């Protein structure tokens, strides 16, 4: 058997009341053909509607981070769904998009008022009822094995006060600072120091892993399992992987992980290989 310095962290059973935050309760940007879709959070996904000011802040953050991933003057379709967007908010979105050389051309909405506001402002309107939105929005269901969104690639350190949610895997080229939170339906890679809170497999996938060059987390969550930072444990200077073993969340050296661990569907956790 291969020696593996796997250390089980301090697992707490008191998982937070709603760890499986819907991955769709935030602004998303997706490529579709030669245009971009800007998907606003949907009312139905979470019980509470995200206030406009936060939607806008999130949008601005998102655009700043993703600036490099499109051609200038790409046209954007705003997928508002059942969310009400008034004339002023449309103007704000258009202005924010213009600042990063994107062009709002189309508004897709299920609400008549929004459609009217958009048409009045001179945008093309696609009126949709909710069912038609499904190609744009993946409806999160705990434990579902549905396909994930394309990975979200962040080129910046995630700083205190920032919470990033994504319906797929998240890759951070930078640190995750204390006070920062990353929630992914898939895996989480931090090419830097992980010092904040990371939640992988947020829709219930126990196979999800969290990897970091330096694991100095405040808290890790995978599916509905939670691990707090062990108190007096020296931090490893090597890249590590966090995963669900039969003892809860464990850490292993990244170098050894793929050689020594295998996901066992029957045990619903990562087990040691026998070579």
């Amino acid at each position, binding site marked *: 058997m291969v020696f593996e310095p796997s250390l089980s962290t301090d697992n707490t059973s008191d998982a937070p009341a709603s760890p499986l935050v819907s991955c769709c309760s935030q602004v998303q940007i997706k490529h579709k053909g030669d245009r971009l879709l800007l998907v606003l959070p949907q009312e139905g996904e979470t019980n509470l509607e995200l206030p406009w000011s936060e939607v806008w*802040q999130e949008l*601005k*953050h998102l655009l*700043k981070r993703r600036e490099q991933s499109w051609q200038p003057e790409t046209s954007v379709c705003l997928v508002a769904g059942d969310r009400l967007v008034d004339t002023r908010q449309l103007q704000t979105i258009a202005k924010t998009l213009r600042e990063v050389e994107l062009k709002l051309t189309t508004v897709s909405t299920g609400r008549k008022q929004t459609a009217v506001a958009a048409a009045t402002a001179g945008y093309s309107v696609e009126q949709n009822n909710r069912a038609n939105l499904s190609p744009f929005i993946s409806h999160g269901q705990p434990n579902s094995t549905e396909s994930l969104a394309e990975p979200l690639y962040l080129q*910046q*350190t995630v*700083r*205190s*006060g*920032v919470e990033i949610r994504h319906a797929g895997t998240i890759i951070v080229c*930078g*640190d995750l*600072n*204390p*006070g920062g939170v990353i929630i992914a339906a898939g895996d989480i890679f931090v090419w830097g120091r992980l*010092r904040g809170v990371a939640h992988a497999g947020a829709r219930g996938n126990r196979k999800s892993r969290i990897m970091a060059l330096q694991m100095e987390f405040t808290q890790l969550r995978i599916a509905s399992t939670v691990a707090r930072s062990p108190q007096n444990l020296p931090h490893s200077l090597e890249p590590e992987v966090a995963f669900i073993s039969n003892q809860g969340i464990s850490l292993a050296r990244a170098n050894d992980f793929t050689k020594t661990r295998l996901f066992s569907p029957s045990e619903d956790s990562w087990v040691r290989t026998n070579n």
Partner: protein
Amino acid sequence: MSRIIVVTSGKGGVGKTTITSNLGAAIATLNRKVALVDADFGLRNLDLLLGLEERVVYTAMDVIAGECRLAQALVKDKRLNGLVLLPAAQNRSKESVEPEQMKTIITALAKGYDYIIVDSPAGIELGFRNAIAAAQEAIIVTTPEIAAVRDADRVIGLLEAEGVNKINLIVNRVKPQMIEEKKMMSVEDVIELLGVSLIGVIPDNELVIVATNKGEPLVVGHKDSLPAIAFHNIAQRLEGEKVPFLDFTSGDSNILNRLRRMFGG
């Protein structure tokens, strides 16, 4: 080209106003024209620290309301040529100022000065957004405490989202003794976490409080004191000069450090 710099921190009481006034004075001694803007509406005290309180007639609010011209509201410092203050209103609600209005006056002010330094209020609400509205660069102030550093990190993220990417860091109230005893975060720890470039370290020093109470910037009254040298060095670094960082890690007993301080600082 003038530079518009906002001094901000997130957390309150870490030394933004102290740094704005002393740094402004230090830059003025380098024969630069400096305008300090108090953006802490309702809780102004930059005028107090500069000893200019009794000379305030109009404020930024009066300029915004069109009740006076910008030039009328500026208070000139008698001791330092080229240093002026645009005071904030004390009585009016800060909710009545909008970022766009702040941007307009600060941009207008920039025409006549080499440096515009804006003293931001604590927090990340409207007052903060007003203070950063016109800024091209920022000086983040923190003390070596976890809560202050956490807030500084948050503010850096907000500044980056607003497109203010030139960000320098000042670590204030550093106590070398405590760092040596590992009771305080070191400056290196702070830089490592925040990932922005360091422009100055200011020791915790009672002269700072003495100067505050007198309404007299340190570079005027205590020119040769350690904190005054620290401010002077920051001013030079802003001017693009390479000035080694002060080493106040060990006490005065260490001759080598004292020499290093004399020549390097």
